[in-house]
């Protein structure tokens, strides 16, 4: 195949650019643990109301100070709401749905994941800025989808 010099330079440059993009992602995944949720855990959506963790979901602070937030998304609300968590500490969300697929987006933060019935989505986020945040459903879930909002309060002092 006859490839001209300029073409060759361009093709190598494009390859290097893409390799750099990928390299940054792999590096951040390895060094800074910037990872997507990769947790596989199933749960029966029909019996959520009897589940010890999700029947009355509430923020839990472990003896080691770790913060865990179980969240149930359902048409058209989040439970618990408001969610109150401390600033600058890793907060692990455990998210599921009791009916259709919902989204759980804490606006202006990196918390953004899907709530899928039958599964638990687990991910950890740190909120550096205290304040009140809007929680929005960002997956269409029915005619009141846009109205499915909640609140997250990030408090200043660690509890």
């Amino acid at each position, binding site marked *: 195949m006859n490839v001209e010099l300029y073409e060759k330079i361009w093709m190598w440059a494009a390859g290097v650019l893409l390799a750099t993009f990928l390299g940054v992602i792999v590096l951040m995944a390895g060094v800074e643990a910037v990872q997507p*949720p990769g947790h596989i855990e199933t749960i029966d959506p029909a019996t959520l109301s009897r589940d010890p963790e999700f029947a009355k979901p509430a923020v839990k602070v472990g003896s080691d100070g770790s913060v865990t937030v179980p969240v149930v998304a359902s048409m058209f609300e989040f439970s618990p709401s408001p969610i109150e968590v401390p600033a600058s500490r890793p907060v692990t969300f455990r998210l599921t749905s009791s009916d259709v697929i919902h989204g759980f987006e804490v606006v202006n933060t990196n918390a953004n994941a899907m709530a899928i019935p039958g599964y638990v989505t687990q991910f950890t986020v740190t909120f550096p800025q205290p304040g009140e945040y809007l929680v929005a459903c960002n*997956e269409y879930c029915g005619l009141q989808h846009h109205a499915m909002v909640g609140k997250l309060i990030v408090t200043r002092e660690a509890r």
Partner: protein
Amino acid sequence: MTQRHALGAAHIGVAVAAFGVASCMGLLQAFSLADIPFPLRSEELYYISLTAHGVLMALVFPIFFIMGLGYTLSQESLGRLAGARVAWAAFWLGAAGAALAAITILRGQSTVLYTFYPPLQAHPLFYIGATLLVVASWIWGAVMIASYRAWRREHPGVPVPLSIHGMLATVIIWYLATAGLAAEVVGMLVPWSLGLVKTVDPLLARTYFWWFGHPLVYFLLLPAYVLWYSVLPQVAGGRLFSDSLGRMVFILFVVLSTPVGFHHQFADPGISAGWKLAHTITTYAVLYPSFVTAFTIIASLEVAGRMRGATGLFNWVRTLPWGDPFFASVALAMIAFIFGGFGGAVNAAYAMNAMVHNTAWIQGHLHVTLGTTVALTFMGATYWLLPRVLGREVRFPRLARVQPYMWFVGVALFSTSYHVAGLRGLPRRVYSGSLTGDLGGPWHTLAQLAAAGGVVIFLSALTFVIIVLTTWASGRQIEAPAFEFAQALRPVSRMGVWDRFGLWTLIAMILVAAAYVYPLVTLLAHTRYGSPPFQPF
């Protein structure tokens, strides 16, 4: 209408009709999201029109256009169409399927959006109609392959024209992609919607959907590339810079376009981070052929400029035929793709994806890529095709000259606004940009700017549809101009490694298996709980 191209013309007619209906719905949505009041505004109307807009714009319009383009190119480049009668049967099957699905949507029985994630459940005819449309496209693929094989028997050892090479790559990608769709729709959703099974696993269905959903993008993009490679340099008055690299590009898409679906599921549970990373690598790899395309096409345009007499470093740009609607459409489509392509690279990066996932950024991105790179190329190609397939002169040529620029300006305003709104957290697909929360968001002005862009896009779409309809009905009858395809600066005289479709298809299948079998088996090995249907619409 010239009898030879009746089939191609019929498909393009359906495509333009679907496009016209969907354009009106797009306008309603942009207004609703910006909280601009209009009569009949309601949640129900918004989500119905959102479903219809997605199904018509992302599936019906491009699938019919691509089928029509494929038949037309086969007639012209291969001088034949094997099984024209079967192809007509497929046309009616596909049109009936699309109509069935559309009726259930407009009646409000299938307000599930074009992603139709279960456990939202549509009317059974929605799934069955979609299946018929896909079966029709499978028949189209078989006709394309049969035409190629008949040509091949008469031309052993000769490289197939690049336009057909690209269309065959499109067909292969479509078969690889729709295998996932068939597993979801035929294997899960049709029996579930008929009540034959009580529950489905929403994550499994989603995974099958994105097995289909991303290569769908390349199925839509490749026919646009076919036009860029094989028609654009000719219309610009130049030569195709490299024929062999074009072949490489199409084959790289065959190999890389399907094993990438998890980049749509970064935010999902049930798939390990390692497999998400594996799909990220292929996602970045599949950007590569587009970089090569950028060089080849721009070099071809420089050749055209020089053949038109340009001598300076950049003044060849000015000598290009910016007043030709086909040229202008494709050139603007390519400029849009610079933003669309890099936007895609942003979406595929985990950290950025957490910010933009399911926000208005995504609808901004889709309207740059599918909505401009693909759709504007297809609109421009329609101006090029109509005289050739109908034997009629395009009506209102001055309007046709302006229409692509209107589209570009409208999309620039629309998509920039939604990209920014998405970065600021506006969720996608919402009836009202103010949501109903106490806190709201700084989105109102951006949503209104997007709506203003939407008005310009709509006027451009309306202009396009009017030109097509009037040309069809009352364009001056002329002798159909010849289909002239671009000649390569360095033509390929012998078949090479990029012409071995069987080998590359096999490699692509192995990669799809490598990307999906292990994560699917892992998922299926868990105790899973299915979901009953919900119809909150």
